[in-house]
């Protein structure tokens, strides 16, 4: 029998909802604990471990100089690193602040005390240290997390689906929002969540990040036909994807700025 791999969870700037998804596994968590040695999980544990982590599961975005230093340390001590949840994989909702002037947004929230701050533009983990595995989603979809964890423990790659959320949405036989006059980010967003939101009557907000080669121009063209202001559309597209340069939308941003 192999020694149980040491697994640790770390969180950076995030809501910790993704860690909670682990606690929500229920008794399955105990089965998981059979095959791994959980050495750090701050949300529910006080223990510390100072050896090498076989698998470090990192939640949250990198947004302060302190974060940068800390993630580097974690990386040095980890054989495998999993970016866990949209905050970690693509910057997630934290990325929205990148659309603002950092000084201005600091002053807005903290007024006079803004000077106490150190903040950096939001970055996903892989832009700071190398990352082996990605579990997208806000929050992560538990079955996918288990699959990735399995791959990490076996040391084989996990391919994040590079197809649109629409694929799973159609598997689930949902009525497409576009047919009801509502826009949805499904067509440019990576599948893998089993079209969670659409199954529950809401639209896709793009939390899993964009497919590798989205047809952004074509997409904006489609969106334009639904009578929403361009500002709202762009804001929606960068709700999760602000850390990524929007190819098509970038142009429109420029246009807007020119006005």
């Amino acid at each position, binding site marked *: 029998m192999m020694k149980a791999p040491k697994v640790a969870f770390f969180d950076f700037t995030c809501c910790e909802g993704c860690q909670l998804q682990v606690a929500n596994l229920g008794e399955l968590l105990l089965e998981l604990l059979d095959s791994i040695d959980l050495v750090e999980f701050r949300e529910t544990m006080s223990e510390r471990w100072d050896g090498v982590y076989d698998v470090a599961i990192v939640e949250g975005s990198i947004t302060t100089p302190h974060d940068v230093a800390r993630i580097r340390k974690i990386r040095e001590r980890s054989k495998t690193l999993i970016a866990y949840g949209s905050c970690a994989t693509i910057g997630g909702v934290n990325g929205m602040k990148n659309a603002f002037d950092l000084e201005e947004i600091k002053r807005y929230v903290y007024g006079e005390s803004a000077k106490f701050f150190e903040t950096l533009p939001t970055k996903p983990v892989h832009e700071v240290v190398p990352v082996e595995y990605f579990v997208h989603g806000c929050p992560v979809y538990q079955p996918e997390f288990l699959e990735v964890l399995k791959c990490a423990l076996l040391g084989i790659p996990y391919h994040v689906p*590079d197809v*649109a959320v629409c*694929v799973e949405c159609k*598997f689930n036989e949902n*009525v497409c929002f576009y*047919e009801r006059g509502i826009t949805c980010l499904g067509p*440019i967003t990576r599948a893998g969540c089993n079209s969670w939101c659409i199954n529950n009557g809401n639209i896709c907000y793009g939390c899993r990040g964009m497919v590798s080669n989205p*047809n952004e121009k074509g997409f904006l063209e489609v969106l334009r036909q639904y009578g929403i202001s361009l500002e709202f559309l762009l804001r929606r597209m960068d709700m999760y994807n602000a850390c990524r340069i929007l190819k098509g939308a970038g142009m429109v941003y420029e246009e807007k700025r020119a006005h």
Partner: protein
Amino acid sequence: MEYAVLPKSALGSFVDALRQYGKVIAPVAKSERHFAFEEVTDARDIALKYIPTILPPKKYFMPQYETLAEYDIREGQKLYPVVEVEHIVLFGVHTCDLAGIQCLDVVFSDRPKDLNYLVRRGYVTIIGLECNEYCDQYASCGLMGTFLPQGGYDLFFTDLGDYFFVHVGTQRGEDIVANFSLFQRAESRHFWDLQLLRAKKAEIFRPEVPVDRFLLPRMFQEGFEAKVWEDVGNRCLSCANCTNVCPTCYCFDVKDVMNLDLRTGKRIRVWDSCQNEPFAKIASGESFRAERSDRKRHRFNRKFSYPVKRYNRFFCTGCGRCSRVCMAKIDLKETIAQLARETGYLKV
């Protein structure tokens, strides 16, 4: 009895009686314009008038996720092939979808035969239902000639007001009729009613695009480099809705999923689509249909040209689903028309 009639008032008890042949599946309304094949326990839930369901009945022949084999890692590399089956009765299948099922039958009976499909196929009883009216602007069953029944069912129902005219297609259909006492022998007035309906339909169901259906394969070959592919390619978002809802698209991916016990698991096949970016990518990163235009052209050719060569039938059933579901509004008929214009096949 090859032809029978069933009073409409008997539909409820007929559906109840059908349950002895399996789970009864029929179109039900999801919204005013959206329908889905779902299990029904009450005939009143059946949408007798419906336009093509979101997903075609293929989901019962070739499910979205289908187990091919099971394994238990404690037993090494042994793999136990399985076929998941269930007796079902599909009630209310329109002619376009019957044609779709026939296409799948052809593909999966072609050697090497696909037993997962064929075994499951044997568990399904199909009761067709004639479309009396034209669905909507997206359909192209006029062009494809699929608005009349051409086999592929155990029973075929035509709604003729207060009764259904029923054509018996197979021995299984024959048994169903024999077992249910409310069927009556069809009489000449019934045939007369049917003929009237068909005559009326012949007026309404006309080729939607003025091209000769039998020249379509040639047109697609000649139009391989046509500009229309680039046009639709620019608009396409690669969401694969068109192929997922297509009654004749059957491409799939094979992968292993581990059960949550992390010991047992299964090898499954999942619907895949030639519209998806990674579909034709190989490990070196090269994709043989990297451009959306290549992929769109491939899809159309796989409906109107390649299968004609290989299986001698069109793989478009004219149901119109792909056009209905496309958020970029890429319309099958418009695309054909544009191609016909470019290649000179448009009849004037």
